[in-house]
């Protein structure tokens, strides 16, 4: 036997025991479900007719692209994920999937999602999807996340882009409406994640992630949550104020915004002990419902408008 053969036997390569479920977990399915929904809204409110096959193709590519960036995030962040209770059970920190497998999985899915969207739908959407993946995996994960307390503010742009990609898939161009959809998610991200960070700050501190409560303290974070929520509520009414959607959306966004603002004020005022944690949890939970409801109403308005000729 040669030395090389002896070595190859002695090295005993790692045999993967990863299940299909582990690879699905790398795609961050819960984040993906929100991406699918916001992209669907972007696609549906776009003017003109999109063939259902192209619509399904677009949503599938955007979902897979979002999943790919999640896998790349889990590959790069495996060291800090292992230190946080919320993420310690992810496939890479637990060793069920090796970092190399996660990286290869993320890169392959990124390539196929971008190329498929570009070839089958259009290259404006394909390019935007590539930019979204790059922004999340490189700008946010590799650079901002470990460097600045503004990580999720700037990085939030990646999460806000799916409806823009979907609009581009439907129209081949961009306009004011998808930018408004972008801005709603962009300004929603800081209150959402900082509410989470308020009751998970120990986790972030242990991992050395400079989230705002860790770096600037909980009081500054509470003020920032309140300020961003005020901007969010104003931005969320813009689709109605600018005349793109009617009063049903306007009234709903104001009502939902008032509720969101009330919870943000509660977070600002409750600063000690269990009530403070409870307020942060309430805001975090409601923020998910808030975004979902806003987009659902946009979708409903479009569906009702499309069905009107058959209904009346």
């Amino acid at each position, binding site marked *: 036997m040669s030395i090389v*053969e002896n070595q190859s*036997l002695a090295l005993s390569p790692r045999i993967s025991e990863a299940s299909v479920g582990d690879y699905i977990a790398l795609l961050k399915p819960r984040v993906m479900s929100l991406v699918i929904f916001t992209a669907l809204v972007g696609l549906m409110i776009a003017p003109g007719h999109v063939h259902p*096959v192209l619509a399904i*193709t677009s949503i599938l590519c955007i979902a897979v692209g979002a999943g790919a960036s999640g896998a790349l995030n889990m590959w790069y962040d495996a060291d800090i994920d292992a230190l946080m209770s919320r993420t310690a059970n992810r496939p890479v920190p637990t060793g069920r999937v090796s970092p190399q497998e996660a990286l290869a999985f993320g890169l392959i899915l990124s390539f*196929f999602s971008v190329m*498929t969207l570009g070839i089958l739908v259009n*290259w404006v959407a394909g390019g935007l999807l590539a930019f979204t993946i790059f922004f999340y995996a490189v700008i946010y994960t590799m650079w901002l996340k470990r460097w600045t307390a503004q990580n999720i503010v700037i990085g939030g742009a990646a999460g806000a882009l799916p409806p823009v990609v979907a609009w581009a898939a439907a129209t*081949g161009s961009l306009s004011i409406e998808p930018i408004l959809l972008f801005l709603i998610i962009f300004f929603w991200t800081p209150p959402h994640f900082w509410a989470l960070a308020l009751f998970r700050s120990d986790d972030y501190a242990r991992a050395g992630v400079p989230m705002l409560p860790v770096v600037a303290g909980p009081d500054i974070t509470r003020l920032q949550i309140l300020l961003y929520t005020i901007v969010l509520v104003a931005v969320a009414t813009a689709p109605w104020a600018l005349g793109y959607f009617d009063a049903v959306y306007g009234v709903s966004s104001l009502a939902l915004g008032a509720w969101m603002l009330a919870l943000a004020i509660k977070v600002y005022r409750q600063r000690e002990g269990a009530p403070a944690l409870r307020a942060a949890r309430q805001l975090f939970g409601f923020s998910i419902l808030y975004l979902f409801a806003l987009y659902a109403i946009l979708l409903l308005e479009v569906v009702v408008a499309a069905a009107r000729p058959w209904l009346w």
Partner: protein
Amino acid sequence: MDDEQPPGIVLTEAQKKRRRERSIAIALALGVLVILFFAVTIVKGPMVLSRPM
């Protein structure tokens, strides 16, 4: 010369099962990709070759 083959890597039943499941998942994903390209080709017709930047 020794005719006996080196044992190499022997997978456990669990590893074989996981590998089979992963292979099926890859096959399904590739199948979906093929169907997608076929369906879009049918939908677009001759326009499938027209891809303005």
